[in-house]
């Protein structure tokens, strides 16, 4: 586990807002020299604290009016069916994320669609036909926010 000091945390908070900032721009904001900032940013990457970047896009402006969280229960369990299910579900372009969970459902999927009828098409043709799929619960996302987290 990596220990961060207050300066690291400020850098992290800044990069979560905008990862494209240069070390010199970031350093100016925080009152640090460019090389010192660069070294700290480098360390955050090297230690895996920053695992990548994510392009934040406006789904609605891109024509994806509907996001749905699907809880999926598998009808038949066993190693083979899990692998088959995971491979097949990950290949569906409308499925943005797949998480294996422990609780009332086996998997949580995040699905985007153009509208409700497009979602119905994805659900019936793509999801319900997946190998081993059992009960499915759909919750349509009305609003969403990401929080900075404990940094």
């Amino acid at each position, binding site marked *: *586990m*990596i220990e*961060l000091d207050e300066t690291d945390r400020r850098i*992290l908070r800044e*990069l*979560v*807002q*905008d*990862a*494209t900032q240069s070390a010199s721009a970031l350093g100016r904001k925080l009152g640090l020299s460019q090389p010192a900032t660069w070294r700290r940013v480098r360390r955050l990457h090297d*230690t*895996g*604290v*920053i*695992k*990548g*970047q*994510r*392009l*934040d*896009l*406006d*789904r609605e*402006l*891109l024509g*994806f009016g509907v996001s749905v*969280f699907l809880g999926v229960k598998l009808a038949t369990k066993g190693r083979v069916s899990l692998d088959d299910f*995971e491979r097949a*579900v*990950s290949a569906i*372009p*409308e*499925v*943005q*994320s*797949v*998480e*294996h*969970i*422990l*609780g*009332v*459902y086996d*998997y*949580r999927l*995040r699905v*985007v669609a153009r509208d409700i009828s497009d979602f119905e098409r994805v659900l019936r043709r793509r999801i319900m036909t997946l190998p081993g799929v059992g009960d499915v*619960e759909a*919750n*349509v*996302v*009305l*609003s*969403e*926010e*990401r*929080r900075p*987290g*404990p*940094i």
Partner: protein
Amino acid sequence: MLDDTDRRILRHYQHDPALGLSDLADLAGVTANTCTRRLERMQAGGVILGNRAVIDWRALGYEVEVSLRAQLDKTQPRAFDEFTAAAREVPEVIEIQTFLGRVDLRLYVIARDMAHYQHIYRTAILPLPHITDIEALMHMARIKADEGLPI
């Protein structure tokens, strides 16, 4: 509003948000000037909301991830607003979604270990206002997480 060139740029940019401008332009088959202009227009138009660093919470010692699905007392007209406002004050809550469906709301909570999770659950989550039912789904593994849109 977006043409094929915009979408091509977005597809490549979404796939690898750490790409430099000239690499992105090459992949999308446009000049660096065109690429810059298109990106600026999509930022100004709100299609691109940001390019954000993604934190690996495990690298910072947060081993436990839990999805808490809550139902609220809908006889209280301000239940959603008050619950959400209070949930924002909990640093370990990193995502908040509201839904149309059986579940009203989801909190994505991270914790250092199970004891820490128990502590957060008892002292910060259960006291949140207007909860009528809450269930926890323990996160086991992330199978697909690019959150890419099928642009």
